[in-house]
């Protein structure tokens, strides 16, 4: 049942992208998403796509695993494209007048644009999770949220909760697999029957798992107490994230890309006015 749950998506190789600071990657991902949404020309979009493909190559992760990330939202993609294609209005009708279904040229262009945007967005996020361990990601998020301490937001506690959750996910997956195997050995059947039967079949897994999770939590609490944990007061932090030259390079590349997108928006409109006419979002 849980055989295919590999924890996180991290792809362990060494690369330029892997060794970037997680904060850089998080901020650049946000910047990238902004860029694909302000891009209003095909040239801008293509520029964004080229940057992403180049990043995937530099990151040395298989292109297939990046593409696979789109699988999860495939249904949403298909649904939105169909809706857009049929219901987006326009001036240049593509289908014959007599048809009940009317598709306009503007709708096609708009749909292609939307698809591209969503593809790039999901794939860019996949590059982040493929090249950053969950732990580094947590460190990055904690560091980026630090300013919120001023408004008494419990940043440290939140980070600790995330870190402990990450730490225990593999342990609990192992435990779940063991309990499933043990109950299967006692003839339990989790794979057949209707939905109610299946839900009922989960009880012999869920209860031992819950009990074990509570037991672990209790022991962990004791162990933390014994190691002098007393909240975030007077606490130091050993790990400090440091920006390096790579982060600077990445930031410059990203800035150049955004600049390119903006320039295309302003100037490319005249280079290819026919297309621009259709693709502008109103």
């Amino acid at each position, binding site marked *: 049942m849980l055989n295919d749950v590999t924890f996180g998506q991290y792809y362990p190789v060494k690369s330029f992208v892997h060794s970037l600071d997680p904060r850089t990657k998080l901020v650049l991902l946000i910047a990238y998403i902004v860029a694909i949404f302000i891009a209003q020309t095909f040239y801008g979009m293509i520029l964004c796509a080229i940057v992403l493909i180049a990043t995937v190559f530099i990151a040395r992760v298989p292109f297939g695993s990046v593409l696979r990330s789109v699988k999860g939202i495939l249904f949403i993609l298909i649904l939105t494209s169909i809706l857009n294609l049929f219901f987006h209005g326009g001036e240049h009708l593509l289908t014959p007048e007599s048809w009940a279904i009317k598709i306009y040229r503007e709708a096609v262009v708009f749909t292609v644009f939307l698809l591209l945007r969503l593809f790039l967005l999901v794939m860019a996020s996949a590059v982040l999770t493929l090249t950053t361990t969950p732990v580094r990601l947590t460190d990055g998020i904690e560091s980026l949220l630090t300013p919120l301490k001023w408004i008494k937001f419990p940043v440290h506690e939140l980070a600790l909760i995330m870190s402990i959750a990450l730490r225990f996910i593999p342990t609990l997956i192992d435990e779940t697999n063991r*309990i499933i195997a*043990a109950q299967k050995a006692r003839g339990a059947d989790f794979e057949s029957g209707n939905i109610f039967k299946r839900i009922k079949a989960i009880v012999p897994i869920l209860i031992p798992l819950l009990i074990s999770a509570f037991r672990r939590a209790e022991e962990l609490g004791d162990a933390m107490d014994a190691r002098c944990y007393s909240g975030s007061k007077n606490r130091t932090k050993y790990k400090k994230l440091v920006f390096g030259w790579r982060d600077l390079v990445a930031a410059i590349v990203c800035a150049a890309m955004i600049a390119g997108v903006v320039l295309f928006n302003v100037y490319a409109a005249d280079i290819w006015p026919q297309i621009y006419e259709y693709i502008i979002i109103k």
Partner: protein
Amino acid sequence: MSEEQINIGGEKKAPQAERLSAAQNNTPPALPAEEGQAPKAAAEDAVVLEGVTFSYNEQPVPALNNLSLTVKKGEFLAVIGHNGSGKSTLARLINGLLLPDKGKVTVFGMDTSEGKNPTEIRKRAGIVFQNPDNQMVASIIEDDVAFGPENLGVPREEIGRRIDWALRAVGMEAYREGAPSRLSGGQKQRIAIAGVLAIKPDIIILDESTAMLDPRGRREVMEVVSRLNREEGMTVILITHFMEEALLAGRTIVLNRGEIVMEGTPAEIFLHSERLEAYNLSLPRIGKICKRLQGAGIPVADCLSPEVLADEIAAAAKQAGAATSGERYVPAPKAADEHDWDIDIRDLTFTYSSKSPFASHALNGIDLHISQGEFFGIIGHTGSGKSTLVQHLNALIKLPQAQKKYRPKKPKKGQPAPVLPHISVGQFDLADKKCNFLNLRESVGMVFQYPEYQLFAETVYADVAFGLKNFRKGIEKEEEERCVREAIEMVGLSYQEIKDKSPFDLSGGQKRRVAIAGVIVTRPHILILDEPAAGLDPLGKQEIMELLHKLHREWCSTVIIVSHDMDEIADNCTMAAVISKGRVADCAPPRELFRREEELTSLGLDVPLTAKAAACLAKLGYTVDTDFTCDDFADRVISLFKGGESHAQ
């Protein structure tokens, strides 16, 4: 022998007997050091408990009762006692995790009850707990070790130095940036120790920290602990079930029902077999052999290591002019000559998460035959693939050919067809898609490690009946009740008393028995148990093994146990296979297997102490042909003397 007369129970220790200190030559010189520093040490009491009483809310009987104890700075104290004797409570009281109801606990002069600064006390006294998995907070080792000093507000650079030091102290510096989930139990526990060391405590308390580890892990941890005591002068309080570990200590106390009932050097304690048994602690194996030899009139002194035992026997044999080789071993005739339930495994390979960057080969071509009627032992380290192997036997892991999606691959031209794994259990062909896997699982019972963690039902009855209802749908109520009753009685519990109780209200040993009952309720022909005695105290272990023998005699034709305890294998199994790196490194009856000490050592495995003693005796010129169970070993040694007498006449 008069020097063996020792007072125990809080009185001053008698000088240690010569041969006892020989058995301890690896131990830290706790006693001499203490004597040398006597005037200074008197001022430095690390821990003082005065008349401490503590009871948990629900329990009417106190967990600790009017207990007084002083631990000197730099001392290595072992605390032993059966499960529920109050050992863990003691650890938690010293560290301030629990506060005494009555009496006073002081750590370096600070009273834990004053509650002004628990952090100050915890800074001086660190605890390492039982389960290494449940004491780590971070997914990267250096972050985890940093947790303690971070809490204390230690500056960053200093934390870095402390991590260096702590990881070096436990010999794990190479793993600094690794993830704990990929480590062995022993390594994880060493990381947990490093995490405590990074706080720079003066006292380190190990609360059964080795109970969940395999022998290699246990050795690793104990080496670290005794080095810390020896070289860093750290005060160590070691709570344990294992005699070998307690022997490393300078002083041992025995707890029973919350009171200190014995106190002395470990040697003194373990030589008092009768009293240990009275406190629900079993006599160590070697003690049993000594008693048996003495009972036969052979003048051997009580001893604690196989080497000393061999010397003792050789000396006695020389004096008595005994024969140099005893009776030859005659293998007992096999009980069952049937082969209806033979297990046959060929070319079994298995890879976890194949096709991913994390793929790991668990099994690399296993060939194994297990005949019906064996009490079969599967030996191997954690991660050797033994658990994966046994999960194939009842198709919890199905062979590739038996999986729904399987399509036979056409062999490429010029290449031989790939060898497919084969497993058959009795008439069941596990490579066949049409095999009735439910019937197979009914016939091949499987008890996992720590089976008590799989209990889930509201009552013991419902939990035991769970498997029965799954396998025999529509079973009659009366029949069901009869099966459940027989299973519960088989595991040595009272049906009437226990059937309506919640399984979660039972004691640890009872829970395990109920869990075993839940598997044997269908009367499987083959019973497989993964580490059936793990985590139990010595007496509990003994009882579980006795239960398995009873099952083997009365209900199950074949019993297979997975274990890393060589003494357990030697004492119980008729046949054993050694699994190493996903292969069968050796498969033989214990009698032959444990002669190959070099081979086993090269695989990082131990031999039982009887085999060690026999090997030492062989060097001294005495041949003992034994199957390496304690009883048989003693009998063979006795036969040396008998042969010797007849020789002399």
